[in-house]
C-alpha cells in the first residue's frame, strides 16, 4: 500500500496503488435487432429502433462503387454520386441544400470500391421530409449538363491539389502498383484523363444502370418504428422503378457476383518490391508497405482481425510501439487489412522523418515477418488484443449513426443477422497458433511492396541496405 487514507462519508478508505484494479464481470449487452422488409420495387428496408435521443439516421446503401467504373471512365461512380445532390426535378443544387438546411439535416455522400452511401441524420420530427429528400436526390437527380461541367471541373481541380498531399499521392500510387487495371486499381476520384473524357451521358447511364432499388438497402436507425418508416419510405420511393425488364425479378446479388467473378479473374500485376514518388526536400517520407490478400469473406477474418490488432491495429501494437514509442521516428504507425468484397489490400501506413526512412522500413518489414513465426504472438499479447476488441465492443452501438454503419456492413458483405452476437465469441476463440497460421498464409514478406513518397536524395540514402532492389521511380503524372 502506498496511498494515504481518504475520507468518504467519514470512513477512512485506503487507496491501493500497489496494483491495478481488476475489472469485475462485464455487464450484459443486447445487440440491436434488425427488422427487415422489402418494398414492392425490391428496395430492402432495414430498421433498428434506438430511442435514446430524438434523432434518426437514414442511410441508403447502393452496392455498386468505384470498382464498377467502366474501362476508361475511372471516377464515374464517384462523379455520379457527387451529382446526386446537384439538383432534383426542377430544383437547383442550391435549392436542394436549402431544403436540407431547413430541417437542420446532416447530409453526406460516401463512395468506396464496393458501394455508394447517401446518408442523412435529422431530428426525428423531420423523418418524413428527410426521406422525401433522400429519395429526391437518389432516385430523381436532375443530372444537368451545366451542373456536370461544374462538378467535373471541381473534381479535376481536386485531383490537381491532391498532387501535393503526400498521403493521397501514396494511396493512389499504391493501389495502382498493387492492382494495375483491376477494378480496385484506382481511387474513386479517378484520373485526369478519364474525367476529361467523361460526359453527362456517362453519368446518366451509370445512374440508370447502377442505382436501382434491387441493389440498394435503406437503413433507418433511431427514434422510429419499422412500420412508420416503411409507410413513409413506400411513398417516398414509390416511383423508383425496379429497372429494365431484363433485370427486373433478378436477384440483386447475382449480377454483382457475376461482375465480381469476372473482376477476380483479371490477373494482378507483378508489383515491384520498392517504389518511390519523388517529393524534393520533404521533411517526412510517407510510406505504404503491403500486398493484396484475402477478401472480407475469408473464413480467417476474425483471426486476421486479432493478428492485426497485435501487429499494428492499436496504440500498443508492435509496430507503433517500435516506430513511435521506442524510436520516435513518427507520430503514429498502423496496419490494416482493408477488407472489401474482392481480394483486399493489407497495408502498413506511416509517415516518418526523412532521415529515418530506410531504418523505419527495415523495422516495419521485420515486424511483419516476425509475427508469422520467428517472434510469435505471446499469450499476453493475444489476451490484450482480444480484450481490446471484445470488451469495448458495445461502444460501437452507442449512437444511431454508429448502429446504422454497423448494420450497413451486414448488408454490404452479406453477413448474417446474428453477426454482432457471434463477433465476441468468434474473436475469443482465436489462438496464438491461429494468428501465426493466418499471418503465414495471407501475408508474405517476400511479396511486400514498399512505396515511399519522399525526398529522393535524403530518403534514398541507405535504401540499398534493404535488399529490395533499386526503387521503381514513379512520377505523379503517371498514376
Amino acid at each position, binding site marked *: 500500500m502506498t*496511498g494515504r487514507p*481518504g*475520507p468518504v462519508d467519514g470512513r477512512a*478508505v485506503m*487507496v491501493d*496503488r*500497489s496494483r*491495478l*484494479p481488476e*475489472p469485475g464481470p*462485464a*455487464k*450484459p*449487452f443486447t445487440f440491436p435487432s434488425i427488422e427487415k422488409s422489402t418494398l414492392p420495387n425490391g428496395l430492402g428496408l432495414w430498421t433498428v429502433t434506438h430511442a*435514446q*435521443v*430524438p434523432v434518426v439516421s437514414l442511410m441508403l446503401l447502393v452496392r455498386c462503387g468505384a470498382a464498377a467504373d467502366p474501362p476508361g471512365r475511372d471516377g464515374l461512380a464517384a462523379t455520379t454520386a457527387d451529382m446526386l445532390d446537384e439538383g432534383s426535378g426542377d430544383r437547383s443544387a*442550391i435549392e436542394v*441544400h*436549402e431544403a436540407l*438546411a*431547413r430541417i*437542420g*439535416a*446532416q447530409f453526406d455522400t460516401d463512395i468506396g470500391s464496393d458501394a455508394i452511401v447517401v446518408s442523412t441524420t435529422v*431530428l426525428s420530427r423531420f423523418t418524413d421530409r428527410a426521406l422525401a429528400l433522400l429519395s429526391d436526390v437518389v432516385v430523381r437527380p436532375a443530372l444537368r449538363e451545366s451542373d456536370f461541367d461544374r462538378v467535373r471541373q*471541381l473534381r479535376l*481541380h481536386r485531383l*490537381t*491539389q491532391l498532387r*501535393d*498531399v*503526400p498521403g493521397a499521392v501514396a494511396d493512389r500510387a499504391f493501389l495502382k502498383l498493387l492492382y494495375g487495371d483491376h477494378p480496385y486499381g484506382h481511387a474513386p476520384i479517378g484520373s485526369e484523363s478519364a474525367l476529361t473524357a467523361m460526359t453527362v451521358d456517362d453519368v446518366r447511364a451509370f445512374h440508370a444502370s447502377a442505382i436501382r432499388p434491387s441493389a440498394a438497402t435503406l437503413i433507418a436507425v433511431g427514434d422510429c418504428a419499422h412500420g412508420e418508416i416503411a409507410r413513409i419510405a413506400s411513398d417516398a420511393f414509390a416511383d423508383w422503378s425496379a429497372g429494365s425488364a431484363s433485370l427486373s425479378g433478378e436477384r440483386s446479388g447475382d449480377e454483382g457476383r457475376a461482375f465480381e467473378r469476372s473482376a477476380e479473374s483479371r490477373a494482378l500485376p507483378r508489383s515491384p518490391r520498392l517504389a518511390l514518388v519523388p517529393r524534393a526536400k520533404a*521533411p*517526412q517520407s510517407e510510406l505504404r508497405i503491403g500486398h493484396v490478400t484475402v477478401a472480407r469473406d475469408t473464413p480467417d477474418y476474425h483471426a486476421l482481425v486479432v493478428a492485426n490488432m497485435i501487429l499494428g491495429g*492499436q*496504440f500498443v501494437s508492435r509496430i507503433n510501439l517500435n516506430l513511435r*514509442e521506442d524510436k*520516435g*521516428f*513518427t*507520430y503514429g504507425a498502423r496496419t490494416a487489412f482493408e477488407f472489401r468484397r474482392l481480394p483486399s489490400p493489407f497495408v502498413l501506413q506511416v*509517415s*516518418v*522523418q526523412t532521415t529515418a526512412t530506410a531504418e523505419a522500413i527495415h523495422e516495419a518489414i521485420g515486424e511483419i515477418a516476425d509475427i508469422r513465426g520467428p517472434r510469435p504472438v505471446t499469450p499476453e499479447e493475444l*489476451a*490484450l488484443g482480444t*480484450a*481490446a476488441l*471484445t*470488451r*469495448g*465492443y*458495445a*461502444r460501437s*452501438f*452507442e*449512437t*444511431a*449513426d454508429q448502429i446504422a454503419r454497423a448494420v450497413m456492413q451486414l448488408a454490404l458483405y452479406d453477413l448474417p443477422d446474428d453477426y454482432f452476437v457471434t463477433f465476441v465469441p468468434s474473436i475469443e476463440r482465436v489462438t496464438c497458433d491461429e494468428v501465426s497460421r493466418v499471418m503465414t498464409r495471407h501475408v508474405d514478406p517476400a511479396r511486400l511492396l514498399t512505396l515511399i513518397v519522399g525526398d529522393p536524395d535524403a530518403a534514398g540514402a541507405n535504401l540499398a541496405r534493404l535488399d529490395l532492389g533499386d526503387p521503381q521511380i514513379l512520377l505523379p503524372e503517371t498514376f
Partner: protein
Amino acid sequence: MKLSYAKHTLGNGLDVLLHEDHGCPIVAVNVWYHVGSKNEHPGHTGFAHLFEHLMFEGSQHHDRGFFQPLQGAGATLNGSTNADRTNYWEVVPPNALELALWMESDRMGFLLPALTEAKFSNQRDVVLNERRQNYENRPYGLAPMALLAALFPPDHPYHWTTIGEIADLQAVQLDEVHAFFRRYYHPANASLALAGDFDPDEALGLVDQYFGTIDAGLRVGPVRASASLSDETRLFFEDRVELPRLYFAWLTPAMFADGDADLDLATDLLANGKTSRLYRRLVFEQRIATDVSASQNSREIAGYAQITATAAPDHALDEIEAVIVDEIARLAAEGPTDDEIDRGRVQAEAQFVFRLQTIGGFGGKSDQLNAYNVFLGDPAYFDRDLERYHAVTASSLRQAVARYLDPLRRVTLSIVPRGRADLAAGGSTLAVVS
C-alpha cells in the same frame, strides 16, 4: 433541452461532474486541466502539448505505458491540447471505471517520479514528427502560424500555435517539465466529468477515494492580454501547393461573449455549405474558386474569424477578394434574410441535439460539461448556450458583421505555389514562417 448533471467539489478543489446515461453499457471519464498554449511564453512555445504526450508515458505506480491496461479492459482513450485547455478521456465498460480512475488519479498525483529524460526525449521526437506530418509536410499547413502571428502581438498568448516553434521544442529541458506539472497539473486547476452507465453514489465514492488525497495545488489565475488591429496587414508566402489560396482573418469576441454566436451564424451563412452566399457566388456561379469556408474561432481571451478560399486555375486571388469584400459589405449593410435566420436556428437546434448522442470522447457530453464548467464555472450552461443562438436576430447579426468583419482591420494572407509570388493578392509582403 437540458444536459442534466450533479456537481460536487472535493476538499482539494477538484470539481466532479456526474451525468447518468444508461443507454449503452459504457462510462466516459473526462479530465480537463485549465492550461493550454496560452499559458506558455515566447521562446517556450509548444510546451503544453508536449507535456500532454508525457502524460501517456506512465506514472509512479504504473511506470509503463498508459494505454495498455486500459485497452486491455476495452477502453478507447485520447487527449488533446489547444490554446486554452488540455483534456484527457477514456470510454470504458462500466466494470473498468475504477481502473480508469486509478490511472487518471495516478498521473494527476504521481507523474513526476516516473518521468525520465529518455521518455522526454522520445516524445519530443514524436512531437517534432507530429509537426512535420500535420503542418510542415501538408499543403497550406503553415497558414495558422502566419495568421496568428499577424493577428496577435508577440507577447500575446495567442501569437503562437499550440504545436509550437521547432527551435523552442528543441531547446526545452526536463526541469521545465517538472515546473510545468507543479504549476498546472493538480486538483485546483482540474475538472473531472463522468458520463454514462454508472451508479452516482458509488462513482463519487471511488472518485473521492482516488483523487481526494491528492494535494490541491495552487489556483491558477486567468491569463490577461489584449490585441487590436489598427489597419490591414497583407502577407504572402510560397508553399508546395498547386493553387493559390486566400485567407482573411479578423479579431472577434471571445467565447460566449456578445457577438460570438452572431459571428458563428454569420460565418456559416457567408461561407459554409452549398447554401452559403460565398459558395454560391465564387464556386457555383462565377466558378472562380474551388472551395470556400469560414469560421468564428472563439477562445477564452479573444476570438478570431477566418474566411478561406482557393482560386480555380487561371483565376486571381484579387478577383476572389473583391467578391468576398462585396458580400461582407452587403451583409453588413442589409443583414441576413429571414430564411437565413430561420435555417440558422433550426441548424443550431439540430446540432445541439446531435451533441447529446454520445457520452465520451472529444465533444461528447462529458467533454461539454467540463467545457462549461472550466470556462464559465457553470456546467448547466448547455441550454443557455443554445439560447444564445436562438437570440440572434437579423439586426444583431448585421451589426456584428459590420463591427467585426472590418476590411480596414484585417489580416489578408496569400499562400501561392513556389516561385509564383506574382499570384499573391496585390500589395502583399513576404511573411516568414517555419
